[in-house]
Structure formats: structure tokens, C-alpha cells
């Protein structure tokens, strides 16, 4: 059998099989999904880029098969999916309707593989919709209060994306008489500019929804927060990358390779704003899951910026960051899922000092956070470095200032996450919290290990990345196992950093542990300097509320000032307009659906103009 079909069969057929298996026995189902996840990954690695499958439908040739470019996303998926599935087994234990959850879970993964192996727009769209609807149902799965609204928001934005995608496909089919992605890309230069812009912007809107670019990001934080965390790892880690995959196709393959750079630059600015505001929102969150969700939005902003700039190093950095974001955000969502399962809450105002209780979770979260913050010597730094250098060397320094500011502000929520969940004063309420089961900690630790290795030897991932870049038209990628170079010829040698840090760290660890080790004592967190006052049992001096009050106070006047100025500039007349616009947001699902259809009709009308 063709391995592509086998891969799809594993997830779609496996999904149905899982449904039956869970009906029979939960143990059988658990074993089955672990096997399916691993088998999917195995089969993916046996697929070569030559493997393909074509059939024709209504005059159009449809086909399946991985391209060089999509292979890298498949790699991410095949790393993340089995780990998330294995993690999910103990995490979801005790929940009911597991058969639905796992079936949809596998459908989402299968849908993503389908998107990646789609050689034509129609197949892509079909799998896209399978993925969207399955994930929508997973959002509704947990039956919490208020989920219908979140689900509505998600499906509303997804519908916008889907309709623009569909319109774009119709336009492509109409103008180029082909539905093949590769042919579209090669024929794209022939089209008139107007058609190019229309198709591109429709596609960017369609893919941008999943990539959570700034005006289309509204659904993301709530949706990422309100699914079971084992799925959030995939949702934020891999599914958002489908949007990135599409954006890469459009911006780099269609526009840049045919000499249209301005759309990409606009997209880069959108990405930079997304990064900045996503970071600001992440800083003020009180819920660790919300924080991670907003941080995902911010991180996707970096990736979109990299794609939008479109130089070799920038795209390379963006793809690297996309991969890495999947790894560390997967780890973090898994870690917070473990915390949620063991301690029962994810609120910073309730959680504290879980480090002694959940050391492995803390360790993997620590490593993932260091990677997220982009601090050497872990893998995140490699991506940040390449992105900044590419932006500086290609002259986009105003964008880079935004990104720099966003990533510095990112330290704030990085610290907040670790401090709020794992550090601080110990609380008796969490006395009996235990470490998560091994099946949950192992996937996290494995991912964390990858992050450590890539920090010193990113060459392991550069090789497939360079291979993937060929699919985007960058053929002459030169890379080194552990040296990063920008286009000005400046380089950073990673082993020097990691070895220096590691050596000094270990050396002084020995020194500080050895010196006077008899006189060194571990004391409880109640035993702190509080001007001599011994804290009683009921006192807890943990500092959790309004953690970044000074930060919010200091940026508040800036926002206030700018908003006031905007109001003054636009004048009072605009208020009437706002009042009018407000009527659109009725809160009724059918009204929204009507808008979507109207939107779709307008798009079609516009498309007809060009035919």
C-alpha cells in the first residue's frame, strides 16, 4: 500500500477504531492510541518526498505527497503527536466520552498530515476543514460553562478563514485553470497584479486565522486555554503551524519569488504588532494557561515576521522558530496540564511552590521557558539570533526594535510562569500534591532534552530545515553544525557559549556545595526574614496578585496618551460610526453566519470582476 494512504489510514481509520476500542475497554483504547501515534510517526519517517499519489477529478488532477517544504512541518507533527498522545493517556484518565475525544484528536492529526501532503488546493481545503471541525468539537468536548461562546468565536474566525480560502481556490481555478499548488506557484508570475493581490490576500487571510495574526487572533487565547492540555500542546504547537505553512507558501513562494515584497513587509509588521501585544496581554494574565496561550500568539508573531521579511536567513529563522515553538510550547502545555491534573488549578493566585512536589515537571518547564525566552545556551536563542540578525542585516530595524521590545517584555511572563506555579512560599493546601505519572513527565523531559541539544548543536535540525528551504526556492543554504552566521559575515559559535556556561556552572556548583557543606542547611519557606516576625501557619506572604503592577503602571500613560491622541485626531464624529458598527455584533450565531455568507458573496463578486 502507498505509505501516504497508510499514514492517512492510521489516523482516520485509527480514529474510528479508537472509537470502537474505547467502547470495549479503556485499556485497549489507551494502548491503541499509543500504538497509533508511534506508528504514525514511524510511517511518516518512511515516506520519502518522491512518494506521491495522483488521481483526477472533474478535469483537475489532484494529488497527495509531501513536498520538501511541508516535510519539516510533518517532522514537527510526528515528534509532537505521539508524545502528546502518550501524555494524554494518564492525563485524560477518568474523563468520560474518551472515545469521542481520541477519535477527534486523531482526526485532527490526520487532517494536518493531509494538509501537508496535499498537492492541490482542493485536497488541502478538505483536510483543512476536517482539522478545523474536529478541533472545534474538541473545544466543545469539556462541556464547561461558556464554552459555546468560545467555540462560536473559534468557528466564526475559522469560517472567515475557510471562506477566504475557498474563494481564493475558486479564483485560482478560474484564472489559472489548475488546482495544483506547485503549478499555481509557478504560474503566479503570469497573473496581473490585481489577481495576484486578490489571491494572495485571500490566502493570507485564510492561513492567517490559524496562525493567529493580529487582527485575526481573537479566537486563539480562549481556544488554546479551554481544550484538554494534551490537545492544547498540539493545538498551539502544531496546528498553528499549518497557518505558518500556508503563509510560507503564499508570501515566499508566490510573492517573493515573483518579486512582490511589499505584502510580506506588511505581514511582518502585523507579526511584530502581534508579538508585542500578545506579550503585553500574556504579562497581565492570572491564569497560567491563558499566559501560555497569549504567549503562543506572541511567538507566532515572531514567526510570521520572519516569513514576511522573506530573506533567506529570516525564513530559515522563522521555520526554525516554528519547529521550536512546537517543541517548547508543547512542553509547557504538557507541564501546565500536569500541574492542573495534580494540583487542580492553574491560577497564579492559587498555585504556589510546587517545585518540591513536581520536580520533573518544573525541570522541563524551566528548560522550555529558557528556550522560549531565547536565552543562551538553549535552542530558543538560536532562532532569536537568526531572526534579529536577518532583520538587522536586511534593514528592517524598526521591526526588530518591536521584536526586541516584545521579547524583553517576554522575560516578564516567562518569570511569572515559573514563579507563580513552582516557586514562592509553600502552602499547606498543596502538601499532598504528587509528581505526575511517568507517562506524563517522560514526554516533557524528552522534548526538553531536544531543546538542550539543539541549543548547542542546532545543526541537527538545520539539515532538514535546509532541505525544506529548497521547497521555498532557497537552494544554496549553507549551515554549520554549531556556528551561526549572518549575511555580514558575523558569527556566533554556540559550543563556546554552552561550554563556558556549563563549565563555570558545574565548577562553582561543586565549590559552593563543598565549601562548608556541614554548615549549610535547608530551611522552610516560612523561615524568611520578615523583620523578625515569625509567620504563623495561617500567614502566607506569597506575592502573586498584580505581580507586574509597576510595569502596567509605567506603560499605562503611554497607552492612555496614544489613545487620547487618536481620539483627538479622529474627532468626535467617529463615535457615531462606532455606534453604528456596534450593531453588527449582535451575539447571535445566525447573524454571524449571515455576515460570513455576505462576506463570501462579496468576495465572489470581486472574484467575478477578474474572471
Amino acid at each position, binding site marked *: 500500500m502507498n505509505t501516504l494512504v497508510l499514514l492517512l489510514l492510521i489516523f482516520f481509520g485509527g480514529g474510528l477504531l479508537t472509537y470502537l476500542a474505547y467502547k470495549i475497554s479503556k485499556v485497549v483504547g489507551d494502548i491503541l492510541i499509543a500504538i497509533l501515534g508511534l506508528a504514525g510517526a514511524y510511517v511518516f519517517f518512511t515516506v520519502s518526498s518522491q512518494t506521491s499519489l495522483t488521481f483526477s477529478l472533474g478535469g483537475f488532477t489532484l494529488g497527495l505527497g509531501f513536498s520538501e517544504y511541508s516535510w519539516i512541518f510533518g517532522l514537527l507533527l510526528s515528534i509532537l503527536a505521539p508524545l502528546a498522545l502518550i501524555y494524554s493517556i494518564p492525563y485524560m484518565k477518568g474523563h468520560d466520552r474518551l472515545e469521542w475525544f481520541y477519535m477527534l484528536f486523531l482526526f485532527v492529526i490526520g487532517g494536518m498530515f493531509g494538509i501537508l501532503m496535499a498537492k492541490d488546493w482542493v485536497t488541502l481545503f478538505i483536510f483543512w476543514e476536517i482539522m478545523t471541525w474536529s478541533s472545534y468539537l474538541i473545544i466543545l468536548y469539556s462541556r464547561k460553562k461558556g464554552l459555546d461562546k468560545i467555540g462560536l468565536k473559534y468557528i466564526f474566525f475559522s469560517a472567515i478563514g475557510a471562506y477566504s480560502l475557498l474563494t481564493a481556490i475558486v479564483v485560482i481555478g478560474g484564472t489559472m485553470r489548475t488546482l495544483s499548488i506547485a503549478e499555481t506557484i509557478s504560474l503566479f508570475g503570469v497573473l496581473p497584479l490585481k489577481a495576484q493581490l486578490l489571491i494572495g490576500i485571500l490566502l493570507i487571510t485564510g492561513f492567517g486565522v490559524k496562525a493567529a495574526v493580529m487582527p485575526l487572533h481573537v479566537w486563539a487565547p480562549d481556544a488554546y486555554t479551554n481544550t484538554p492540555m494534551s490537545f492544547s500542546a498540539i493545538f498551539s504547537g502544531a496546528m498553528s503551524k499549518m497557518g505558518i505553512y500556508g503563509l510560507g507558501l503564499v508570501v515566499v513562494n508566490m510573492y517573493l519569488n515573483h518579486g512582490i515584497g511589499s505584502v510580506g513587509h506588511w505581514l511582518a509588521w502585523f507579526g511584530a504588532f502581534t508579538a508585542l501585544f500578545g506579550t503585553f496581554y500574556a504579562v497581565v494574565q492570572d491564569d497560567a494557561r491563558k499566559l501560555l496561550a497569549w504567549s503562543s500568539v506572541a511567538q507566532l508573531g515572531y514567526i510570521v515576521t520572519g516569513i514576511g521579511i522573506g530573506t533567506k536567513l529570516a525564513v530559515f529563522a522563522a521555520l526554525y522558530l516554528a519547529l521550536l515553538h512546537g517543541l517548547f510550547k508543547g512542553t509547557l502545555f504538557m507541564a501546565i496540564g500536569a500541574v492542573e491534573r495534580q494540583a487542580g488549578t492553574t491560577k497564579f493566585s492559587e498555585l504556589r511552590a510546587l517545585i518540591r512536589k513536581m520536580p520533573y515537571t518544573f525541570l522541563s518547564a524551566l528548560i522550555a521557558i529558557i528556550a522560549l525566552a531565547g536565552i543562551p545556551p538553549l535552542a530558543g536563542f538560536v532562532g532569536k539570533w537568526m531572526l534579529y540578525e536577518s532583520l538587522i542585516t536586511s534593514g528592517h530595524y524598526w521591526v526588530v526594535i518591536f521584536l526586541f521590545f516584545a521579547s524583553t517584555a517576554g522575560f516578564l511572563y516567562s518569570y511569572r510562569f515559573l514563579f507563580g506555579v513552582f516557586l514562592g512560599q509553600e502552602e499547606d493546601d498543596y502538601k499532598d500534591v504528587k509528581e505526575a505519572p511517568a507517562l506524563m513527565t517522560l514526554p516533557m523531559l524528552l522534548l526538553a532534552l531536544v531543546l538542550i541539544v539543539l541549543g548547542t548543536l542546532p545543526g541537527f535540525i538545520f539539515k532538514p530545515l535546509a532541505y525544506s528551504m529548497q521547497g521555498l526556492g532557497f537552494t544554496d543554504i549553507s549551515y554549520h553544525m554549531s556556528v551561526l552566521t549572518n549575511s555580514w559575515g558575523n558569527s556566533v559559535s554556540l559550543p563556546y557559549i554552552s561550554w563556558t556556561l556549563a563549565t563555570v556552572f558545574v565548577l562553582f556548583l561543586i565549590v559552593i556545595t563543598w565549601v562548608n557543606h556541614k554548615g549549610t*542547611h535547608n530551611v*522552610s519557606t516560612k*523561615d524568611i*526574614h520578615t*523583620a*523578625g*516576625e*515569625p509567620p*504563623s501557619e495561617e500567614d502566607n506572604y506569597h506575592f502573586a496578585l498584580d505581580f507586574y503592577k509597576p510595569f502596567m503602571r509605567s506603560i499605562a500613560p503611554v497607552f492612555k496618551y496614544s489613545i487620547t491622541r487618536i481620539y483627538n485626531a479622529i474627532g468626535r464624529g467617529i463615535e457615531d460610526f462606532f455606534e453604528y458598527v456596534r450593531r453588527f455584533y449582535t451575539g447571535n450565531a445566525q447573524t454571524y453566519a449571515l455576515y460570513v455568507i455576505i462576506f463570501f458573496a462579496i468576495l465572489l463578486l470581486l472574484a467575478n470582476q477578474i474572471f
Partner: protein
Amino acid sequence: MNYVLNDRESSKIIEFIKNFARKNSLWIAAYGTGCGAIEIPPTMTSRYDAERLSIRGAATPRQADVLLITGYLAVKTLKRVIRTYEQMQDPKYVIGFGSCTINGGMYWDSYNTIKQLGLYIPVDVYINGCMPRPEAVIAGFAKLQEMIGKGEANGWKHYKENLEWYRQNQQRLIKNWKMPDFNW
């Protein structure tokens, strides 16, 4: 060069170096207990400048070497002082400051201030006076430095060895004894 230091002698030298460093870097736990705290600012600032003698304030007991008991000590404050003293790291020294720490001073018949500081925490140096002037304070510090240099300021060792006795005295005054254990 056949002479090789034996264990005793080398430890003696190390002890000498340690004591030299200790005596020349005295960090005070800034915890003003009584009215004598008002004498500390002139001691530290430009008129008398204790910093030239390597004496400076530390913000928390964890960093500090010297606990200054500046004058009278109410029973309520005593509890906090004991806590602060136990949070300090060895070696640590206590200077009893003013008459009140010696025999109660002018508060000798007050129902709520302690009369002899030495019963509750080990005092290395007493400075007499009500209040002692900054010159006297500096003289007291000089005495403490001299004692540290000779290795005589061993109040902290005494406290460790006679913890039972000190606890007995402390608990007679502090009736509701809810304190973390003395664990180092």
C-alpha cells in the same frame, strides 16, 4: 624548606585569616529596638563615619554579622530579636547598647522591659551609657573587633552549647512560644 605545617598550625593560620576578615567587615543588622537607635545615624554618617572602620549596615539578618540591641527591649520586641538573632549566620555577634541592656537602666521597674539582655541572647560587648555617645559606640565596636581578632567573641558558640538554658529564660517571658525551630 623542610618545615611542613602540621594540621594544627595550618588551621591556626586559616583561623587567623578568617578572623582578620571577620573583624574588618562588620555588617550590622539594622533593627532599631529602643531609643538608642537614634545614636546610630550620627555614628554611621559623616560626623563619626563608622564605615571607615569597616562597619556598615546590612538590610537583613541573613547578611548581617552584628546585632545591635540599642537600648531597652520590651518583651514583645525580645521575641523578634531572638528570631532575628537566630536567622543570622554564624559567626554572629551581639552588642548590648546602653544601660538598659545591662541592668534595665531607667526602666528597671518597668513590667514590660527586660533587665538583663545576657540572659536571653549571648552578648559579646556591652556599651555603657544612657545613651552612649557615638564615640562610645565606636569604642565598643573597636573592642569587639579586638575580641574577634583574638578569637574571643564566641557568644554564638556559647548560645549553641547552652541553648537549653537560653530557651528556658526566653520562654519564661514569652509565654506563647510559637517559633520555628533553631535549625542551624
